[in-house]
């Protein structure tokens, strides 16, 4: 009988213990935010924030940093330098926002262009392709499938971005500016499901340039 009472008590205590789960966080109070730097000046650039320094190449993949995680709502200040030209930039990222700070030439000096993206199209079966328009002389940029004139995105204003989910296929694109070809064909290769890409239109010293970058956060 004592054994039975003990067993019942143990069972009751166990059930009570199961019912009392400790409280834990079910996620962050606000969403993650990111900032990256893009060098569209065609010369080497340095970005300095306190002791942190990011060196950006003049050409190729090294022109663009990865997206660095930042605290949403906090003011972020950095100094940008290309040769002797300097510019200061300040941004505040909202929760869930991806901010691109681009450096562009302006005569002998430089300007910074801030492009903000709050994506809601995360999808592991498709690829996300964006067109980022850094050319203030291009009022309506578009991205077509190369040689097919099929529009992926249209009417992208300067200092802005549009993106679209596409099937993960091999993709060559042509940037359009006011309905004319801008820059060379950009070959993104075989798109990977779940990956995110930005095709960039930038004002070059001689002519408009186009290239693509993966929107990497790590």
């Amino acid at each position: 009988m004592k054994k039975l009472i003990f067993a019942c008590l143990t069972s009751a205590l166990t059930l009570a213990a199961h019912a009392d789960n400790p409280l834990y966080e079910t996620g962050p109070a606000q969403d993650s935010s990111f900032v990256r730097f893009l060098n569209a000046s065609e010369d080497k650039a340095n970005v300095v924030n306190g002791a942190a320094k990011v060196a950006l190449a003049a050409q190729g993949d090294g022109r663009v940093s990865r997206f660095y995680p930042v605290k949403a709502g906090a003011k972020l200040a950095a100094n940008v330098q290309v040769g002797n030209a300097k510019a200061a930039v300040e941004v505040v990222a909202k929760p869930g926002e991806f901010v691109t700070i681009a450096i562009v030439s302006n005569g002998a000096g430089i300007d910074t262009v801030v492009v903000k993206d709050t994506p809601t199209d995360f999808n592991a079966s498709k690829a996300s392709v964006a067109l980022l328009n850094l050319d203030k002389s291009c009022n309506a940029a578009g991205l077509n499938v190369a040689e097919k004139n099929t529009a992926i995105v249209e009417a992208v204003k300067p200092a802005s971005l549009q993106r679209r989910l596409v099937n993960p296929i091999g993709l060559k694109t042509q940037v359009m500016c006011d309905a004319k070809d801008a820059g060379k064909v950009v070959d993104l290769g075989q798109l990977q499901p779940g990956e995110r890409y930005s095709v960039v239109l930038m004002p070059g010293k001689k002519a408009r340039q186009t290239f693509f970058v993966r929107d990497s956060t790590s």
Partner: protein
Amino acid sequence: MSALLAGLTVLIIGDSHMSTPDYLITTLHDDLMSKGAVVYSFGACGVAAGDWMVKSQSPCGGAARIKDGPVEVKTGQDAMTRPFNELIKTYKPNLVVVVNGDTMASYAAPELPKTWIWQQVSRLTKGVKNNTVGCVWVGPAWGTEGGKFNKTFARAKEMSGYLSEIVAPCTYIDSLTLSKPGEWASSDGQHFDLAGYKAWGAAIGNAISSPAVLQTIKK
């Protein structure tokens, strides 16, 4: 006892639903074993999906169960995730079952943190892709509204819909289709009584045994 899953080695990893005896670490584990699978289960309460790629401390306990052994409860510093790649190397599963949703839904926040969830889920699914292992992802169940975690049916539905789009290559198991809202009793809105966990475990086991899921697994 059946042989539906004979020849299959299953690794289950998950959050609080896998961290207490009589939760899914008992009922789902038993269900898959009764169908002939060899099962290894690991739970770390309160962790997000990406925490499974490295050794991460659980804020509220954990548990492990190897094959037909007992549930070993872990507390304090012993309650950790084990890195996914190490688990795959050690147990060589054909199928990984991820039980994770409630710990990323930010029930107390006004907005679903979609970017953060994407990051967390992508970290783990990258591990799944790199190891070319079959995978199913079990999303949150309805629970009950209110309770100390502030869970709501609307957020559970939003979270489940979002997970279904971002967990590939894992096959998504929508737990919301496995019961009616509030059908399984819960004391805190999120965790169930034994009857609830038995029903949930059996329903997940049936989904895993379906031809649609079995076709995706290399034996």
